[in-house]
């Protein structure tokens, strides 16, 4: 891809907007279409685009293997942890109503946190798949 200057320059510009759009989809999921799954896939696709154009080693410098693996596990832990915190706060597992001042505030907080967990896991698993395939 070294000689494809148009691809290189446009990727350099686009990746930032793709990642920003992923974050928008992530945190706007309660109001519009979107959520952790979609945001994670878009984030992963943005990173893979960078890896395709600038080489997977350049992507590994930005996001090392070990960090992607940890984030994949942390996302599931965050999701399950919200459930456990709900138990400790006196509710049922994954009953977010007890997390905030009012039930709806708790629901809102819980949903944002678990969607973040979903997004973290989906994005890093997508990147992990890309790493695993390009390792061959």
């Amino acid at each position, binding site marked *: 891809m070294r000689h494809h200057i148009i691809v290189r320059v446009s990727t350099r510009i686009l990746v930032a907007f793709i990642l920003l759009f992923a974050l928008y*989809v992530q945190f706007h*999921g*309660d*109001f*519009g*279409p*979107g*959520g952790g*799954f*979609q945001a994670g*896939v*878009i984030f*992963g*696709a943005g990173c*893979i685009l960078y890896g*395709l154009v600038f080489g997977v080693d350049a992507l590994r410098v930005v996001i090392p293997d070990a960090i992607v*693996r940890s984030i*994949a*596990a942390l*996302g*599931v832990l965050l*999701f*399950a942890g919200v*459930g456990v915190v709900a138990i400790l706060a006196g509710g049922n*597992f*994954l009953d*977010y109503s007890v997390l905030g001042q009012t*039930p*709806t*505030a708790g*629901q*809102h907080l*819980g*949903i944002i946190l*678990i*969607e973040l*967990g*979903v997004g973290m*896991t*989906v994005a*890093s*698993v*997508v990147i*992990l*798949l*890309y*790493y*695993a*395939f*390009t*390792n*061959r």
Partner: protein
Amino acid sequence: MTLDAVDVAFTEAAVGAGIATILMLATLAITSARQKPSEKRALAPMLAAVATGLVLAYGLADLPPFADPEAPAHRHVAPRYLNESAKEIGIPNVVTSVLASYRGYDTLGEVTVIFTAGVGVLVLIGRTRHRRRENDDE
């Protein structure tokens, strides 16, 4: 969009356009054009597949017609989700309310499945790097 399922369409668009192509090409790159000849007879797996297919086809006959408003799925909890979620959850996107809160347990399972699938892929094809590094040293 005729089904008004924007969230699902969004997911499919992101996965289909962004990831599936890459994975398809990557799979093509690490596999060859010809399958290795298998010694084993595939009779028992084929019987199992055909039997499962027949059972599923038999079960299809009991499904309600497509887009039937009287279908159990539309009369059981769906009205409550649509009518009460604004009060109970307080966010405008009902899909997110159902996915993240009412069905939070399912979604936790889904995320676990994705994580497990990622771990499975790593176990199957993620180990080759160390071997290649050893070769590089030689």
